[in-house]
């Protein structure tokens, strides 16, 4: 029997609850409808009285119901009713003695249900949404059994809620319920304090009266007060895709046309026409639309203002991976930004090796910013060394707190190559960085990346939300040099619609908060603040700058200049203009040129200069943080827009002397004190210069973090990937600090006698790691925990031999390394896409979850692995193929040789006895693809052709 726990109730469920006769449980219905023209406030007061009454009479399950809406009755907005009752029950300390169920026609989208649970409902019966499903079936628009359809809908809702809770790191609905994990935007303090107590709301907004009027108005559209006929067809709101007569989109046919025309012809006047549409006075679409400049009496001449050439250096294109957009589009942006000395961003999909060098055509296609996201696709030593700036993506504006899933059919062979994965096999980005669960972990990753490329700036990308300023301070203390505050409105290749619309905040709020909080903590001059999120004009940039930003990112606009017409089909691989597709046919239609992007950036800079001149600022630094130059637009002080209170944004309490980033204050990593600088690089420098092998021995302790990473980066710079295995060997004694051997390249071997901490072998890029317990140890080797959690995260190649047990999430997101370990914790080989892992012992729970590629061999002596294996993507089989047997035996042999493992020796010497006890874990799709590629190769195709043919055969 399969039991489904779901707080979304069917109408039948609710009937059961209403009529149940179980001693100790009594359900009572309390209506949340009221006579039209009664005040909403009174209606809520009355609701409290009713709730108290039924509770006094013994009810401990209260069903708030809005059934009964008619000509005379309107419903209290369900969220308001639930939140108000919850607040009332907490205040009167009755909350745990009774539960609230909502029976309402209003909720229909996942986000609606999430807010209702979040503000206190224990269960919800969305009767109208469920009846709408029946209607769709009656009308033949949905072909499905009505019960199955309602079930599917309920399932979708609860899964959506769990996903929303997971974004906050919450795993049980019981804890999520009533936890109020929302920020209100545009609701007055009165309403918040009274009914949504404890919720952050910082720009004021609608009052209870306004809510009442909205309810009335909506009701009158259905039930005409004068009993006249009403138009019952539903409105088309155009919330996502543009619809005429509906919601105003900033990118509409007119703005898209003008933007493309101006950047293609290089005509600044046309561009001004475009920006005048974007900045339209009476069509306010975002917070910056409410803001005007507080021009000084006298500006300065535009000639005195910093040049366009200088300003564009502060411009960047957004992080869009090679994979989400086409090679042509990706390279066009890189070329353009390199021409301008600005920066393009690789996104999270790696970058082709060829692009690290200037092309034969003299064009530089290397993205200056290399992104490190949770999937770590293509993050190798070489990739990091090629960066001017390394960006850690903590969240993405369109779907903060969520991971990604690139379906197999979009993993074309060339995409697989740069991501170091297998064509046609799905790729999953985990929601969190598995090496960042807290602030000190982020500090560690920043430190690791600084070691991996000491010349690069380390940037951290955050998404605007309440509290982002405090986070930014923590990030600054952790050593970041650039902090990007991304708006909620940023683009995405694919995301659930409820995330696109309902998570994150406008950058105006996050940016202002970050700037203020950093000032308060005396950290502002240590970091550069960057912002992005639908920056479309020089005016947008000027406002961002005055609110505290010094660098600026653009993503949608450059795509539009390259031909994007906002079809919003990026997730479907059918982009008609060859921008967001990998389909070779569609890519032929790509018509973008670097010059268009260059024109756009220069036009923005030019327009920014015009504002700067009027504002009397010679440089961007001078304008940075000058909120005194901003004010609320005169025509927005009253009326509907006047409800929004921008004072918290515009009145910076810490405003004083001008503060912006200064190089001299930058965080000191004290790399000169590392073992790498003090010993390894010193002693090995002549050998490296001569390209000769060398070996040395050092004592280390847990404070020696990222050991070998600086040396590894140096080797990558000198030799690329050309070194032979074991050319340089470092023998260590003691306890390895966090990130032991992070990102080390081929040719470097670190051997450790002792034990090590978390993030062992992070991003291993071809190097070799060996660890075994001290020779004096008396405990059993294969029972001792020798390395910490999250080892080999994002390893791309190389080897690791571990003579002991590893912690949680061993080899998570491994895409190419070979590793042997003698036991591991929960979630082993999670999200693995390649490589080979041998476990000579017991694994923890949830082994191979989300594993889409690579192979794991587990010595399953008591045949219990099946209980701990996550079988959704992999199969469990015995090792029979002769090549597999050979491979396994060879790996174990190498492990024994490297570590002297007792267990390994036992297994190796009695291999035929142990072989039947090994289980081979292989992902379904991966297996199929590999077999097909082999078949193609056997037909005589080259390995590259074989991949393409196999991909076409299985995925197209």
């Amino acid at each position: 029997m399969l039991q489904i726990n779901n707080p979304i109730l069917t109408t039948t469920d609710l009937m059961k609850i209403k009529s149940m006769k179980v001693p100790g449980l009594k359900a009572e219905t309390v209506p949340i409808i009221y006579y039209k023209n009664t005040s909403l406030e009174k209606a809520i007061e009355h609701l409290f009285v009713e709730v108290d009454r039924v509770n006094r009479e013994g009810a401990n399950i209260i069903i708030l119901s809005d059934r009964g809406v008619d000509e005379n009755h309107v419903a209290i907005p369900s969220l308001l009713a639930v939140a108000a009752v919850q607040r009332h029950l907490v205040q009167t300390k009755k909350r745990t003695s009774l539960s609230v169920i909502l029976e309402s026609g209003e909720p229909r989208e996942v986000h609606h249900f999430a807010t209702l649970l979040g503000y206190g409902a224990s269960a919800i019966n969305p009767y109208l949404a469920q009846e709408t499903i029946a209607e769709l079936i009656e009308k033949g628009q949905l072909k499905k059994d009505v019960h199955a359809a309602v079930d599917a809908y309920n399932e979708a809702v609860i899964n959506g809620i769990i996903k929303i809770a997971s974004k906050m790191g919450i795993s049980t609905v019981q804890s999520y319920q009533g936890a109020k994990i929302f920020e209100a935007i545009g609701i007055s303090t009165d309403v918040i304090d009274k009914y949504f107590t404890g919720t952050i709301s910082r720009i004021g907004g609608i009052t209870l009266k306004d809510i009442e009027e909205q309810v009335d108005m909506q009701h009158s559209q259905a039930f005409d007060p004068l009993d006249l006929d009403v138009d019952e067809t539903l409105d088309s709101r155009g919330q996502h895709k543009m619809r005429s007569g509906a919601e105003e989109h900033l990118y509409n046919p007119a703005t898209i046309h003008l933007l493309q025309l101006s950047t293609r012809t290089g005509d600044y006047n046309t561009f001004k026409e475009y920006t005048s549409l974007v900045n339209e006075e009476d069509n306010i679409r975002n917070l910056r639309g409410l803001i005007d400049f507080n021009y000084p009496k006298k500006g300065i001449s535009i000639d005195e203002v910093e040049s366009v050439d200088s300003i564009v250096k502060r411009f960047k294109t957004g992080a869009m991976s090679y994979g989400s957009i086409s090679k042509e589009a990706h390279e066009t942006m890189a070329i353009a930004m390199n021409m301008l000395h600005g920066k393009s961003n690789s996104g999270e999909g790696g970058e082709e090796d060829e692009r690290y060098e200037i092309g034969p055509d003299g064009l530089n296609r290397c993205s200056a910013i290399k992104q490190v996201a949770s999937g770590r696709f293509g993050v190798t030593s070489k990739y990091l060394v090629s960066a001017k700036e390394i960006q850690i993506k903590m969240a993405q504006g369109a779907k903060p707190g969520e991971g990604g899933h690139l379906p197999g059919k979009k993993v074309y062979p060339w995409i697989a190559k740069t991501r170091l994965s297998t064509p046609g096999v799905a790729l999953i980005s985990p929601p969190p960085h598995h090496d960042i669960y807290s602030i000190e972990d982020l500090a560690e990753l920043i430190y690791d990346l600084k070691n991996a490329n000491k010349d690069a700036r380390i940037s951290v990308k955050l998404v605007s939300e309440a509290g982002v300023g405090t986070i930014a301070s923590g990030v600054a203390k952790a050593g970041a040099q650039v902090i990007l505050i991304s708006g909620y409105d940023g683009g995405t290749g694919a995301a659930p619609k409820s995330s696109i619309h309902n998570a994150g905040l406008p950058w105006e709020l996050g940016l202002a908060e970050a700037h203020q909080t950093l000032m308060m903590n005396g950290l502002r001059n240590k970091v550069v603040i960057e912002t992005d999120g639908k920056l479309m004009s020089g005016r947008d940039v000027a406002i961002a700058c005055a609110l505290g930003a010094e660098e600026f990112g653009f993503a949608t606009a450059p795509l539009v200049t390259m031909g994007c017409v906002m079809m919003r089909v990026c997730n479907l691989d059918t982009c008609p203009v060859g921008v967001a597709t990998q389909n070779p046919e569609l890519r032929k239609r790509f018509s973008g040129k670097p010059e268009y992007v260059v024109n756009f950036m220069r036009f923005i800079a030019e327009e920014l200069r015009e504002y700067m001149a009027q504002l009397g600022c010679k440089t961007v630094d001078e304008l940075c943080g000058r909120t005194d130059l901003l004010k609320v637009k005169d025509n927005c002080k009253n009326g509907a827009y006047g409800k929004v209170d921008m004072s918290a944004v515009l009145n910076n309490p810490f405003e004083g002397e001008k503060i912006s980033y200064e190089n001299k204050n930058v965080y000191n990593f004290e790399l000169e004190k590392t073992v790498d600088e003090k010993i390894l690089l010193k002693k090995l420098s002549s050998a490296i210069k001569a390209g000769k092998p060398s070996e040395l021995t050092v004592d280390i302790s847990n404070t020696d973090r990222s050991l070998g990473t600086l040396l590894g980066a140096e080797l990558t710079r000198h030799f690329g990937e050309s070194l032979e295995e074991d050319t340089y060997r470092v023998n260590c004694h003691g306890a390895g600090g966090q990130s032991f051997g992070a990102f080390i390249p081929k040719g470097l071997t670190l051997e450790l006698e002792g034990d090590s901490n978390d993030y062992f072998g992070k991003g291993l890029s071809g190097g070799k790691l060996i660890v075994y317990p001290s020779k004096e140890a008396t405990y059993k080797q294969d029972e001792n925990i020798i390395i910490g959690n999250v080892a080999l995260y994002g390893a791309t190649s190389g080897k690791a031999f571990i003579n002991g047990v590893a912690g949680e999430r061993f080899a998570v997101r491994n895409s190419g390394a070979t590793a042997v370990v003698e036991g591991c914790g929960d979630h082993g080989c999670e999200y693995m896409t390649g490589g080979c892992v041998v476990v000579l012992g017991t694994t923890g729970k949830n082994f191979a979850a989300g594993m889409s590629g690579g192979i794991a061999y587990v010595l399953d002596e008591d045949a219990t692995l099946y209980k701990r294996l996550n079988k959704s993507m992999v199969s469990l089989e015995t090792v029979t193929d002769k090549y597999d047997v050979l491979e396994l035996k060879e790996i174990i042999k190498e492990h024994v040789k490297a570590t002297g493992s007792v267990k390994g020796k036992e297994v190796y010497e009695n291999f035929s006895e142990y072989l039947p006890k090994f289980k081979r874990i292989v992902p379904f799709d991966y297996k199929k693809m590999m077999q097909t590629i082999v078949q193609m190769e056997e037909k005589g195709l080259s390995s590259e052709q074989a991949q393409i043919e196999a991909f076409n055969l299985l995925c197209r």
Partner: protein
Amino acid sequence: MDNDNQQMGLYDPSFEHDNCGIGAVVSIKGIKTHQTVSDALKIVENLEHRAGKDAAGETGDGVGILLQISHKFFKKACKASGIAIGDEREYGVGMFFLPQDELKRKQAMKMFEIIAAKEGLEFLGWREVPTKAEILGKLAVECMPHIMQGFIKKPADCNKGLDFDRKLYVARRVFEQTAEDTYVASLSSRTIVYKGMFLVDQLRLFFEDLQDEDYESAIATVHSRFSTNTNPSWERAHPNRFIVHNGEINTIKGNADKMLSREETMVSQVLESEMTKITPVCNQAGSDSAMLDNALEFLVMNGMPLPLAVMITIPEPWVKNKSMEQARRDFYQYYSTMMEPWDGPASILFSDGDIMGAVLDRNGLRPSRYYITNDDYLILSSEVGVLPIEESRIKAKDRLKPGKMLLVDTVEGRLIADDELKATFAARKPYGQWLDANLAHLSEIKIPNESVPVYTQPERDKLQKAFGYSYEEIKESILPMALNGGENTGAMGIDVPLAVLSKHHQPLFNYFKQLFAQVTNPPIDSIREEIVTATTIYLGTAGNVLEEKKKTVICFRLIILSLLLQI
């Protein structure tokens, strides 16, 4: 004591987060030595990279240590101060952070003496704690409290240990409500907390007590804090009264709210008459860790064993764990009807001076490694290698696993592993029997012989209009969800107005934006790590969490189980 702790501009102090490094040294046999104190300090000194500091790099975010009260030391120290404290555990020690202003300080001290007397406790005297302010950073000195120790005699009719601590707890709670600008870091007859705004190596140097060879303890837990802010605060350093915490409670708002509403139903025999003095249980101005500590302390003082209190607030995932034995499932389910998980990444060490325990969150999101030595010491920390130990001394190297607990009982002199510990608690009461008799499942309730209410098409049309349904919502949300059982995907961002700026009708839901985790706590993967998720909701009246018994009426809850899928 948080001088600048107020809302300014867009900043709000409630946004503050902190994470850290933790460690513990415990003599399993309960042998008190100064070496234990010194070793624990050494651990925290080696966790420098897990601690935060201010922009100038001279003030730390907070470092602290929790120790047993060393009778050997206090006998000596109090003699010098002229305070007669009597025998071991015959007195309690309070660690007070008092105002620097002399008048205010005297008032606060007087107030405490009065409260102690009122609570039937004899106040023995004050001791000035010797400190070295000159080694501290500027920010730390500016908000440094005046640190005093207060001594209280155990009433003759009161048992040593918990019973006496309970009286001290009530006195402290009353004092906390009356005196502003003060903070009691600890007040107990068993444990004491030394902490402050230090860099990791300043803790030892600042408090001379900690350097005294006579300061001996069998238990020491340490903590180094990394805060997102450098908002000056001495009290936000850990340890709290019972716990040190590395991680973050994501659900804190809901937990605190529910704790508040639970106050009406929570009654215990031991503190019944004092309930008004000790509520509200959680100080909502405190950090997430402080509020969890408040809740645990409340449960313990009301008679719940400390390990049990930790188990029910941070339960291991049991719903989807098929291999867990029935008794343990019943135990967890029984308590889950009354207490929701305090969810989030957490590695927590807890101690009441007799036991020291460690627990890890359900997802294993924080590191917790430990060594057990041949001479019966437990050394636990966020990292290994923090304390150099000869390999030959080590009996075992292990780690705490997700959701698991480890306990050292220094009185019994033994280490208790997770399985034994939980089996013991699960066997205490017939939880399964109670659940069977009292828990109803929605799936088992009969469908009544009534017809399901259905609207006519015209009624539906009107209602859809009245509730503001749009064409797209039906075609692009409801339809695909009913068809595929999942949400629709979209591409590119949003460029439509915020709800408050829109000219069209916007349902109230649209004014709320979902918060999400970044940096200080991780989002989790509900698909790939589904085993830790749970969607069960209980309806009805939650019982009195402080009383373990079968509650036919009061603890009656209904599990919502949808009946529609029964395969």
